[in-house]
């Protein structure tokens, strides 16, 4: 709960029930993987529970959780980039894939084209467009969550849209 002594309005369970769907949706769209999205949510809510701080509103809690998800997802992003590089090297040197790699490829295949397109965006653009489209946040809110100006948010949202338009076009999904 929001630590009874700090905030009496809502319990941890209420916060969890109310915010999990949004936090999970954002986590999934940033990482493109349900398991990793669960890991991010787990970490975010644990950190929230352990934090001895009051929040003036449930929205502030949401922003805080999203900030944690975004930061943790950066670590995941770096790991994924390393894995991808290692996998590319492996593909060049090996004739066959082991089961794990095959499974990964299959997962990649079954993932929807929308998620595949999002995955192709650089992390800084992906986070912003995800927060805009799936989080329903304003430029101001996004800017304050990730620590950039509203103008910067505006540019990133626009660039993300431009890139997505190109990616969809390559996939023969026409947006215009």
């Amino acid at each position, binding site marked *: 709960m929001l630590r*009874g002594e700090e905030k009496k309005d809502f319990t941890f369970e209420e916060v969890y029930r109310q915010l999990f769907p949004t936090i*999970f949706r954002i986590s999934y769209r940033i990482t493109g993987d349900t398991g990793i999205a669960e890991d991010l949510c787990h970490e975010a809510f644990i950190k929230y529970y352990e934090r001895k701080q009051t929040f003036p509103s449930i929205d502030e809690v949401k922003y805080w959780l999203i900030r944690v998800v975004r930061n943790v997802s950066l670590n995941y992003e770096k790991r994924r980039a390393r894995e991808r590089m290692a996998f590319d090297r492996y593909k060049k040197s090996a004739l066959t894939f082991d089961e794990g790699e095959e499974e990964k490829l299959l997962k990649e295949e079954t993932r929807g084209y929308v*998620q595949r397109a999002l995955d192709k965006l650089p992390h800084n653009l992906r986070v912003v467009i995800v927060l805009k489209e799936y989080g329903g946040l304003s430029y101001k809110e996004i800017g304050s969550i990730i620590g950039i100006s*509203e103008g910067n948010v505006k540019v990133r949202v626009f660039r993300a*849209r431009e890139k997505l*338009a190109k990616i969809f076009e390559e996939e023969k999904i026409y947006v*215009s």
Partner: protein
Amino acid sequence: MCPEDDIISAYLDGELDSSVSARVEEHIADCPRCKEKLRAFQRISHILLEDESPDYLASMEKVKRRIQISQLASEGKAGRGIEKNSWWHRKVEFPLPLAIAAMVLIIFLGFMVFFKMPSSNGVRMMRIKKEPSGVTEVQVSAPIEDLEALLKTMDNSDFKKEVIIQLPPKSQFLMVGEPRIMREAEFTRIRLK
């Protein structure tokens, strides 16, 4: 003169000042190129939102359990013990039948302690049955020698309960002194306070 594309994108998001927004709207109405740009951005938004996200309910439940486990583990490590209501209302879920069985066992053990049942040395077998009607049946298998003590305990106990003593079907009793138990293999004793 056409506005920059990022302005059209911001217009779609309703992020422009009202005066700027009105001018952009006016321009878009008369400019096929900007109209098309706006339509493309709208289409991208629709594509993103139409894509079905994975069902969060299963994940919600899974993560909840993981949080509870992590929290209990960290509390254990810190040696803080479990404070009542400090975490998720301290609700520990386990199957209902198990809960009922545990409750019945606790009641029975309580009964044993408070009503001083015949020495546990004499109890060879105990079976607890919960009837669908809600009646809890506690079957105790005790040696014949302990029946006297059992009856005495029931006489001294301060509760209203129906007690059925079922003797082994092939029991044989000698008629010595004043018989406490009649020849019937079973009798029902109702003690009203």
